[in-house]
């Protein structure tokens, strides 16, 4: 007991040196704790995103192959409905979102932008019959209500309901006004590109639309790509309507876990999915989200390792200096009969007292500074990763169809001070201080006191 009290007094007796030691320790601990907390937080975030977006699988046409093969028989690159059906039953899946877009024409309906933009340009793909240039798009979704635009409030139902049965549809308010539509009305459409294939849809709802067109404003955009001309129906209806038309389909399947991707792809190929379709996780979104956080994780880890190494070095040097300065004192207490282990215990106590005080102060500081530092680093990481985003813009023509390419990079990372990080770093610090003081102690206590005392005199 007296050893501990004496150690406590010694900490105060050597206050000058101990304050220096404490400042260095404090810097190391604060730095490491901050880094570790940011590191573990970002690791946790990566895992969350992995689970969320890594689990979402798309089946999209391989765009490079589509262009090469556009001259071929279109059936070859269209996934069979049976493939989708077979996949929907897969044991790997939690669910599926399928979509199908059919560029369409109508004798009775106008598309927004049809009058202002160049329209009615006759084209003859595949050497077939001349048809009108499409002025509207029939878009079918497995779950129309689950479209991000509806969920995020860019679109919203203002009248009626979502399509439930086959051959029901909803259209935008602008489209309704242009064509003077009302609920329950049957609209007549035809497939735009290849052959005459009429479709009758019952209008069951209208929605407001705040989404922006890719090219030009909502009113001015050419009819064929004007999102106000979307006629939203269920997947089955659109798919039947499309039949043999070369079109863009997307299929998003939700895996029970990301590791099941390859099992799932094998099932898809076995079910007859052509290699003209890619089975992928949404990599760009994944990278956009995970890369900045990953960057932060590794920055902080490197920082921590450097700091810790430096810290240990400095603490060890200080400990060695301190021990040398106190060699005589140790000789005296040994001469008075204090045992080696008691001397060692006293010195370890001193180190521990300083370290524990530093830890307590450090944790307090960390509580205050970690969040601002994390925010700062994240902003920097996001700006580093920014240019990569543009690459995803190329397929924007069909952006409206991609059910949800919405994995946003985090603009905020809520740092949680996890006890594990605190406990870990505390233990590491205590251990390091313990070891560095033991090294000095081992040196000093191996001598008989006579040596220490006569050396001084």
């Amino acid at each position, binding site marked *: 007991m*007296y050893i501990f009290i*004496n150690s406590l*007094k010694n900490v105060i*007796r*050597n206050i000058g040196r101990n304050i220096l030691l404490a400042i260095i320790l404090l810097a190391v601990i604060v730095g490491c704790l901050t880094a570790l907390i940011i590191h573990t937080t970002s690791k946790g975030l990566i895992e969350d995103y992995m689970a969320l977006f890594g689990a979402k699988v798309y089946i999209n046409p391989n765009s490079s192959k589509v262009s090469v093969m556009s001259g071929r028989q279109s059936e070859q690159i269209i996934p069979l409905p049976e493939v989708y059906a077979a996949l929907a039953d897969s044991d790997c899946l939690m669910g599926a979102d399928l979509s199908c877009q059919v560029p369409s024409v109508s004798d009775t309906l106008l598309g927004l932008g049809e009058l202002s933009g160049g329209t009615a340009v006759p084209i003859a793909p595949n050497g077939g019959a001349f048809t009108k240039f499409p002025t509207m798009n029939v878009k079918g979704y497995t779950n129309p209500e689950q479209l991000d635009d509806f969920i995020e409030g860019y679109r919203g139902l203002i009248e009626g309901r979502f399509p439930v049965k086959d051959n029901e549809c909803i259209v935008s308010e602008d489209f309704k006004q242009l064509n003077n539509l009302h609920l329950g009305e049957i609209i007549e459409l035809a497939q735009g590109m290849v052959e005459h294939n009429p479709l009758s849809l019952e209008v069951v709802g209208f929605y407001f639309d705040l989404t922006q067109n890719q090219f030009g404003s909502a009113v001015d955009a050419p009819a064929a790509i004007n999102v106000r001309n979307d006629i939203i129906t269920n997947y089955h209806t659109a798919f039947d309507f499309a039949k043999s038309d070369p079109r863009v389909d997307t299929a998003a399947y939700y895996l029970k876990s990301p590791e099941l991707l390859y099992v799932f792809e094998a099932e898809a190929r076995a079910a007859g999915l052509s290699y003209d379709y890619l089975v992928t996780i949404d990599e760009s979104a994944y990278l956009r989200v995970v890369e900045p956080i990953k960057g932060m994780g590794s920055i902080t880890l490197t920082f921590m390792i450097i700091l810790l190494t430096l810290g240990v070095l400095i603490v060890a040097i200080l400990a060695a200096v301190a021990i040398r300065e106190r060699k005589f*004192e140790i*000789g*005296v*207490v*040994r*001469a*008075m*009969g*204090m*045992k*080696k282990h*008691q001397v060692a215990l006293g010195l370890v106590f001193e180190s521990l007292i300083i370290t524990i005080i530093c830890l307590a102060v450090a944790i307090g500081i960390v509580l205050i500074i970690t969040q601002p530092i994390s925010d700062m680093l994240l902003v920097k990481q996001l700006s580093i990763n920014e240019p990569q985003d543009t690459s995803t813009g190329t397929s924007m023509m069909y952006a409206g169809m991609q059910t949800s390419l919405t994995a946003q990079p985090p603009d905020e990372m809520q740092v949680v001070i996890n006890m594990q990080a605190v406990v870990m770093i505390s233990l590491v610090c205590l251990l390091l201080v313990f070891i560095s003081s033991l090294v000095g102690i081992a040196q000093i206590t191996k001598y*008989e*006191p*006579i*040596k220490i*005392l*006569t050396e*001084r*005199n």
Partner: protein
Amino acid sequence: MSLLKLNNVVYRYEGGKKNVLKGVNVVFESSLIYTIIGKSGSGKSTLLSLIAALDVATKGQITYLGTDMRELDRDNYRARNIGVVFQSYNLINNYTAIENVVLSMNISGSDIKNKKQYAYELLETIGIDFETANRKVVKLSGGEQQRVGIARALSHNPDIVIADEPTGNLDSETEDEILAYFDILAHKENKCVIIATHSDKITNIGDKVYRINDGRLSEGKTKR
């Protein structure tokens, strides 16, 4: 049984070229003052260090109550059985006088309840007042440090008290006081007191006087 017995003790410092003690034979008993006189460098401090068990003899034997020092728990022996007044005081400089004394008591495992009180009283009897006792050792004069060293040596009530040139830094009045105190220790409190000195004046208080010359001890003239 004799208290301490040195039998043909030879000592050479670690890394030293020659033996500093060259076969010392001597016996120490309770209730007597022993003085050891010799020139500077003759080996007085070395001999006392071995008696204080700060190291063991290179050759030969030192026994305390019949037990070889090599087998003894020398830490315990230093803490409880012997009190040492060092030539160079060997106090801890950034401790106060009282802290030095109390630390020694703590190390010895003394069962005195109020150690601080006891230490103040001890310092008082040896001429260190309360105010001085609370000063750091660095702020004490040589004479004051010497007194604190004596108080520390006595604080755990040892059987043997050794003093290495204890009066070297003291004026003659103080020297007399201190020597009188050693006299009481040996003859009233039955301690074995061993004093090393190079001054003839001190040899006068010795019940037994030894001369040391180049590491060899010989019995000198005894006054009484």
